[in-house]
């Protein structure tokens, strides 16, 4: 009965979103902001970037709501959009970093800014983010959905359109790779 009520509420809320109702936008943001920001934190490693990215995610959700076919729950679809947007963000960031690195000799000031910024981040958070940055997209997404958003394997499987055993395998490989990266970081920086 409770589930039916929730389903009806969600259906009404989605209808209101499709109709462009501002109150519905605010309710969705209120309900899912923390989950989306947490996910974005996993991808960006910085609270400011996560905030900006989360805002972009909500804009994408609202602009694409007519594409939501209700074949999955709204939150599953929302996470799918968020993961997709986050992976795009990382791709763009990587390109930007490559361009900055290429210009390094021309603008050495960038280096100082980056070093100062890095000093603000704790060694452990930096080590973790460096290790996460080296994970392939799917492993990273599965790990972040599991560890940052505390989602069950079945939920992650729905979001990533894969099986539970594939999620288990992705998480196993993610942990193995993270361990390898963290060990390298430890040997190079902490010993």
């Amino acid at each position: 009965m409770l589930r039916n009520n929730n389903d009806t509420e969600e259906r009404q809320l989605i209808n209101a979103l499709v109709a462009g109702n501002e109150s519905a936008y605010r309710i969705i943001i209120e309900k899912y902001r923390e989950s989306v920001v947490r996910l974005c934190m996993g991808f960006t490693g910085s609270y400011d970037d996560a905030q900006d990215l989360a805002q972009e995610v909500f804009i994408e959700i609202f602009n694409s709501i007519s594409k939501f076919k209700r074949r999955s729950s709204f939150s599953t679809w929302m996470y799918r959009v968020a993961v997709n947007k986050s992976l795009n963000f990382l791709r763009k960031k990587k390109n930007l970093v490559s361009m900055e690195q290429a210009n390094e000799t021309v603008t050495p000031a960038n280096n100082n800014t980056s070093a100062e910024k890095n000093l603000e981040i704790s060694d452990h958070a930096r080590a973790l983010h460096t290790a996460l940055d080296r994970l392939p997209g799917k492993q990273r997404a599965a790990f972040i959905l599991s560890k940052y958003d505390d989602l069950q394997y079945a939920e992650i499987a729905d979001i990533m359109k894969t099986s539970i055993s594939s999620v288990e395998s992705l998480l196993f490989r993610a942990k193995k790779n993270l361990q390898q990266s963290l060990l390298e970081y430890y040997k190079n920086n902490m010993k």
Partner: protein
Amino acid sequence: MKCSEVHKDLIFYIEGDLSPEREKALRKHLDSCSDCRAYEKFMRQSLGAIEMKKDVPADDEFAGKVLEKMSSVPIKTFSIAPVLKYAAAAAVIVLGVFTGMGIANLTTNTSTDKLAEAGEEYYYHDEMEPIESFFLIKYDEDE
């Protein structure tokens, strides 16, 4: 157990994913190896950074910022144009087929039954592509 084995299994030990026997052997090694204990401490603190980052502070201005950004960016709204495009294409095909059949009836003695046998009646009953597939975004992974 060797240090290299600890390096291989430590994350699974911390996550509680090891078998009881493996866990016991690893713990025993940690008790006697200060290097591996230091590494374990580093690993625990690094993975612990996740818990710290999960704490999302309240932000009363967040919704306002999203709505403000939305109003400054042109919203992609549902468009009837693709539907009209396909409807027009279907109308042209149907018109063409009927015109063709009319001309054929004037010039030949082919019966409707014979046309049906030749499969021509299915020509304009072809199923159109479902409308939703034109709008569907696929959020595929890139690995």
